[in-house]
C-alpha cells in the first residue's frame, strides 16, 4: 500500500468512527449543559442500534434511523424519569440504565433471532456523495461521501452552537446546568428543561446506535455499542462542552481508533492500545487545565430540587 493510499484510508476510517461518537457526544453536550450527566448514554446507543435494526427490518433503513432515535430517546426518558423527575442520583441511575439496556437489548434480540443470534443482514443506509466537495483531495471522500447520519452530525454543530449560546432557550438551559437555584428563581422550569435536554441527548445517542447497525455494520450484535456511550462522555470533556470543540474531539478519538486499523494494515509493529488510551489521557490533561481553562457546568450531576 502506498503511503498516500494508507493516509487516505486512515482519514476515511477516522471520520467514519468519529460520526457515531460525534452524534452521541453532541447530544450529551446539551444534556450536560443542562446539568445532567447521563452515564446511561451507552444504554441509549445500544437501544438505538437495536431499534434501528428492528425498524429497518420492518420498514426500511431510513425508518430504522427514526426508530433508533426513538429507542435511544426512550431509554434516556427512563433515565431522566428517575434521575431528574424523581431526583435519584444521576451517576448510579445512569449505571443502572446502561447495565439494564445491555441486558434487555440482548434479551429482546435473542427472543427475536434465537439464542445464537444468527448473523443478521440488514439493508444499509447508502452514502450520498456531495458533488464537488467530495472531490477535495484526501478530505473530500472522507467527509462528503457519507451516509445521512454524518451530514446530520455536521449540521448539528453550528445549530447547537447557535441554540446554546445565541438563544433564550439555550441560555435557560445553561442556567439550569450552572445554577439551578438561580435559574428557578428566574422562572426557568428546571426539571422540564433537564428532562428535555436528557431525552434529546438520548435521541442523538440513539441515532449514533442506529448508525452503528445501519451504516457502519449492517447488522446487530449484542454489546455492539462497545463503550461508545462512555467514550462520548470523554469526548464532551475533551471538547470542553462546546459543539465545535466536541466535534473536533470526536474526530480526534475517531482518529486514534482508526490508527489501530491503519497500523495493522501497514504491518507496523506499534503498540496501538497506547494510541487508544491517548485520547483519555488527553481528556484528563484537559480537565487538569493543561490546554487552558476547562470546567464542567457548575450544577452537573446535582439533583434539583435538593
Amino acid at each position, binding site marked *: 500500500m502506498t503511503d498516500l493510499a494508507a493516509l487516505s484510508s486512515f482519514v476515511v476510517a477516522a471520520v467514519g468512527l468519529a460520526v457515531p461518537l460525534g452524534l452521541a457526544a453532541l447530544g450529551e453536550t446539551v444534556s450536560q449543559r443542562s446539568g445532567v*450527566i447521563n*452515564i446511561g448514554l451507552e444504554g441509549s446507543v445500544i437501544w438505538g442500534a437495536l431499534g434501528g435494526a428492528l425498524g429497518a427490518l420492518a420498514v426500511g433503513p431510513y425508518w430504522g434511523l427514526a426508530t433508533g432515535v426513538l429507542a435511544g430517546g426512550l431509554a434516556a426518558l427512563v433515565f431522566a424519569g*428517575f434521575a431528574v423527575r*424523581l*431526583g*435519584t*442520583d444521576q*451517576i*448510579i*441511575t445512569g*449505571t*443502572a*440504565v*446502561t*447495565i*439494564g*439496556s*445491555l*441486558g*434487555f437489548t*440482548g*434479551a*429482546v434480540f*435473542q*427472543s427475536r433471532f434465537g*439464542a445464537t443470534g444468527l448473523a443478521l443482514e440488514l439493508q444499509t443506509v447508502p452514502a450520498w456523495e456531495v458533488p464537488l466537495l467530495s472531490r477535495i483531495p484526501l478530505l473530500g471522500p472522507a467527509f462528503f461521501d457519507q451516509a445521512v447520519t454524518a451530514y446530520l452530525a455536521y449540521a448539528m454543530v453550528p445549530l447547537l452552537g447557535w441554540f446554546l449560546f445565541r438563544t433564550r432557550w439555550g441560555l435557560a438551559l445553561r442556567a439550569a446546568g450552572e445554577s439551578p437555584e438561580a435559574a428557578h428563581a428566574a422562572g426557568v422550569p428546571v426539571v422540564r428543561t433537564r428532562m428535555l435536554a436528557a431525552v434529546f441527548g438520548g435521541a442523538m445517542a440513539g441515532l449514533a446506535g442506529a448508525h452503528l447497525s445501519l451504516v457502519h455494520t449492517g447488522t446487530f450484535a*449484542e454489546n455492539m455499542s462497545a*463503550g461508545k456511550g*462512555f*467514550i462520548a*462522555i*470523554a469526548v464532551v*470533556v475533551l471538547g470542553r462542552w462546546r459543539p465545535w470543540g466536541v466535534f473536533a474531539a470526536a474526530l480526534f478519538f475517531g482518529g486514534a481508533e482508526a490508527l489501530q486499523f491503519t497500523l495493522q494494515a501497514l504491518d507496523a509493529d506499534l*503498540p496501538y*492500545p*497506547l494510541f*487508544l*488510551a491517548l485520547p*483519555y*489521557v488527553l*481528556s*484528563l490533561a484537559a*480537565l*487538569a*487545565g493543561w490546554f487552558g481553562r476547562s*470546567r*464542567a457546568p457548575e450544577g*452537573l*450531576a446535582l439533583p434539583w430540587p435538593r
Partner: protein
Amino acid sequence: MSRGFSITARLRPELVATITATVAVIATLAVAATLLALGGHSPGDAFAALARGAFGTWDRFVSFTLVRATPLLLTGLAVALAFRARVWNIGAEGQLHAGALAGVAVALLLPGAGAVLALPITLLAAAAAGALWASVPAAMKTEMGVGEVITTLLMNFVALFLAQFLVQGPLRESRGVFNQTDEIPAAAHLPALLPDTRLHLGFLFGVVIAVTLWLFLTRTPGGFRIRAAGASVRAAEVSGRFSVTPVIWLSFLASGAIAGLAGWIQIAGVTHRMYEGLSPGWGYTAIAVALLARLHPLAVVVTAIVFGALSAGGGAMQREAGVPEVWVRGIEALVILAVLTADRIVQGMAASRD
C-alpha cells in the same frame, strides 16, 4: 436473613435501610416476573432454575456463587467506602485492572527464591497499584477541584488499554499464541478455603476487610470523619472543625487499594493468569452491590452473595428454563432502580414528617 443484619437491626436507621432494601428486592422480583411473562417465559421456572443454579447443591453454592461473589464483594466494599465519604469513585473497574496487572507482573518477575513471600508481596503490589490509580482523580479533586465522576471514568479506559497493551506486548505469554500472560507460579496461587471446592482464600479476605471497615467506620475517629464528610461536607468542616481533604484522600486511596486487591485476588484464586476482558464489569456492578447494601460494609457481604448468585444461576436459568442469561443484567439494573426509588420515597416521608 444474616448475621450482618441482626447485629445492626437494633439501630433504627439501619432497620429502615434493611426494610427498604428488602422491599426493593421484592419489587424487583415482581417487575422481573412481569417482564419475563411479557417476554413469553415462565417466571416461576426461571426463578427456580436460577435458585437451583446458585444454591441447588453445596458445591453450586460454594464453588460458583461464593467464587463469583468474591470480586463483587471486594469491589463492592471499595465503592461503599468511597460513597460513604461522598467520593463518587466509579473507577473501581480501572483500579481493579491496575491491581491485577501489578500483581501479575510482580508474580511473574519475582525470582523463585521469593516463593514464601510471593503472596504477601503480590497482594501488597496490587493494593498499591489500585491506590496509585485512585490517586490521580484524588489529586485532581483536592488540588484542582475537578469532579471525580468523569476522572475516575476516564481512568477506567486508560487502565483497560494499558492492560491490553501489556498482555499483547511486554507481559504476553512466552508461547505467544493468545493475548494473555504466562501462568503465575504456584507460590502465588491463593490456597483453597474449603477442601474439594473452588472457593479460595480471597473470599475470606473480603469478609475480613468488610469487618475491618465496619469497625473502622463505627469505632475510630477516622471512620467518624468519613461518615461526617459523607453526611455533609460543610457540616463536617464547620462543626467537626476538620478539613475534608485528608478524608477524601483516605477514602480514595483505601477504596482504590481494595478494588486493586479484587483484580489480583481473582487471578491468584481463579484464573491464574491475566488476559483481556478479565472483568465482565465488576467495577460497575459493584455500584449496585454497594447501593443495595446501603453502603454498609457487613451488608455488602450479603449483597455480593446475592449478585454472585444471580451470576451463578444465570447459566442454569438459560439451560433449564430457556431464559437468556442476559436477563440477569436486566435484573441487576432493576435492583438498582428499585433501591433508588425506595430511598426517595423514604426521604420523602421523612421530609413530610418534619
